[in-house]
């Protein structure tokens, strides 16, 4: 990772940190060890119940707030333009729905979800670090489905895991439970988490405990994990571990740091065919709707 990317980001965080709940710098009441200790099994999204092949809209890091913007109008225009069979069957938001964790920001996210619902696209959310600022967890469980941060559902061939990494770690209880669940689950697995694992050495925006990272990578490699999707790092990052593949989804929020980031956001579409066992993932740039393949 390039240090010259980190420095502007550090300044941005420094100057905006008061709104990030600086009073909670040393302590937050709801941490991962109280939020996420045992996995919750949820129902498969209704829209893929009878399907063997389907598309999933992946959106990361929306950062709803008064001071940010995102290309949601471009996204909805794009959805409008699609043929019925091209419309994604459900959506996964990979964390950081809000910028400061305020209720007003969660209501903005709620409006976004309601609008996706008009396209018959149900939405599942992951918890991100920004979402828990200013005690945002209380609002997260109120506004974000499925109202839990550590959960799983199963399709005929695959198990889909959603992890709570909003504190930059899984915590001991979630980690131990995850390892046990992976061992007992004989299906192939797809994992979603806000924090990347490694993402080709992206330095700061990963799980920072290298021992936790090593144990997770070993567990994923040994237990039929196929893909690990993450957000958090706004310009993405991919890595092939041999037995599984990590894909960082670029941020949906409009970001502009001259020379580092483009000024319009991204989304991705994951296409799954359970009959043939094939996966493909394409990334869309809101600037010109150009498409590039992640894998």
């Amino acid at each position, binding site marked *: 990772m390039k240090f010259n990317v980190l420095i502007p980001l550090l300044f941005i965080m420094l100057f905006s940190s008061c709104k990030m709940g600086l009073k909670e*710098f040393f302590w937050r009441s709801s941490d991962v060890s109280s939020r996420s200790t045992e996995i919750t099994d949820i129902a498969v999204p209704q829209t893929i119940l009878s399907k063997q092949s389907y598309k999933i809209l992946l959106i990361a890091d929306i950062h709803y707030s008064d001071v940010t913007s995102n290309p949601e109008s471009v996204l909805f225009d794009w959805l409008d333009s699609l043929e019925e069979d091209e419309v994604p069957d459900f959506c996964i938001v990979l964390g950081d729905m809000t910028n400061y964790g305020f209720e007003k920001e969660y209501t903005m996210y709620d409006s976004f979800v309601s609008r996706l619902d008009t396209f018959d696209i149900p939405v599942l959310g992951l918890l991100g670090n920004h979402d828990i600022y200013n005690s945002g967890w209380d609002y997260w469980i109120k506004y974000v489905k499925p109202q839990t941060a550590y959960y799983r559902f199963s399709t005929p061939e695959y198990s889909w895991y959603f992890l709570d990494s909003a504190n930059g*770690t899984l915590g001991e209880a979630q980690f131990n439970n995850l390892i046990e669940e992976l061992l007992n689950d004989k299906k192939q697995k797809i994992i979603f988490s806000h924090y990347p694992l490694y993402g080709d050495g992206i330095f700061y925006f990963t799980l920072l405990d290298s021992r936790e990272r090593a144990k997770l990578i070993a567990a994923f490699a040994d237990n039929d994990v196929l893909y690990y999707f993450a957000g958090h790092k706004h310009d993405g990052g991919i890595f*092939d*571990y041999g037995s599984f593949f990590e894909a960082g989804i670029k941020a949906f929020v409009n970001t502009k740091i001259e020379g580092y980031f483009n000024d319009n956001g991204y989304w991705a579409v994951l296409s799954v065919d359970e009959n043939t066992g094939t996966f493909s993932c394409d990334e869309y740039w809101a600037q010109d709707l150009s498409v590039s393949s992640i894998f």
Partner: protein
Amino acid sequence: MIMKRCRILFILCYLFVFLSAPVFGVSQFLELSAGTNGGTGFAKPFFAFSLSHNIFIKKADFFGGFQYTLGQIDVTGRVRIWLVQKESAAFGFGLLQHSGWFLGDGREHDFFGSVYGSIGSISRCNFSFDASYTYKYSVIPAIRSSVKFLSDNGLALSLRLQREFASRLLFYGGMSSYEIYRFPLFLMPTYFLGLLYSHPAGLTARSQISVRYSDQLTLTAYVNYISISAGVGCKF
């Protein structure tokens, strides 16, 4: 291959200094310490035991030590060269190498290139810091057939305030993004407070409490665990 050679060179240098120290009559410090942890963080080691050895010569010092915790063994070596070494100010640079074995799940090796600084008399108030460029490479057997190792570049920082009372008691505290046997990738800071008692005969006793956070720069503020340790040492 280069990393392996660096590690071997580090070990040979340390052994040379360690074995030759009695011959040249340099001052040394040996400490045995033990600690325990409490908290809800990831895989906290319940018990830790460490043995650390320091050698001090004019304008330089050497450190070597190991720590055993449940499921992990760490070995660290460090050399510091002091360009300025006065009672009220010091400045130097150094190299550090750490190897950690996660028993069953891989190993990691860290290399630090550091600058060290210190200002103020210890009898009044002494502030010291170090800042490092770091390189970590991790070997994970489960993926080794495809990925030989993972590499991470990083930064590390440590700040410390200390003051000595009645020439016997040293009170210290500070924060650090790493510890001598713990090397997260970046800002999982540890805040620490400690007390060191030195007996005129050269024996020392130390106790320390440390609070270890997860990724605090993103303000997620999660206390991984709290560590309490105590050690006895001797200067000779």
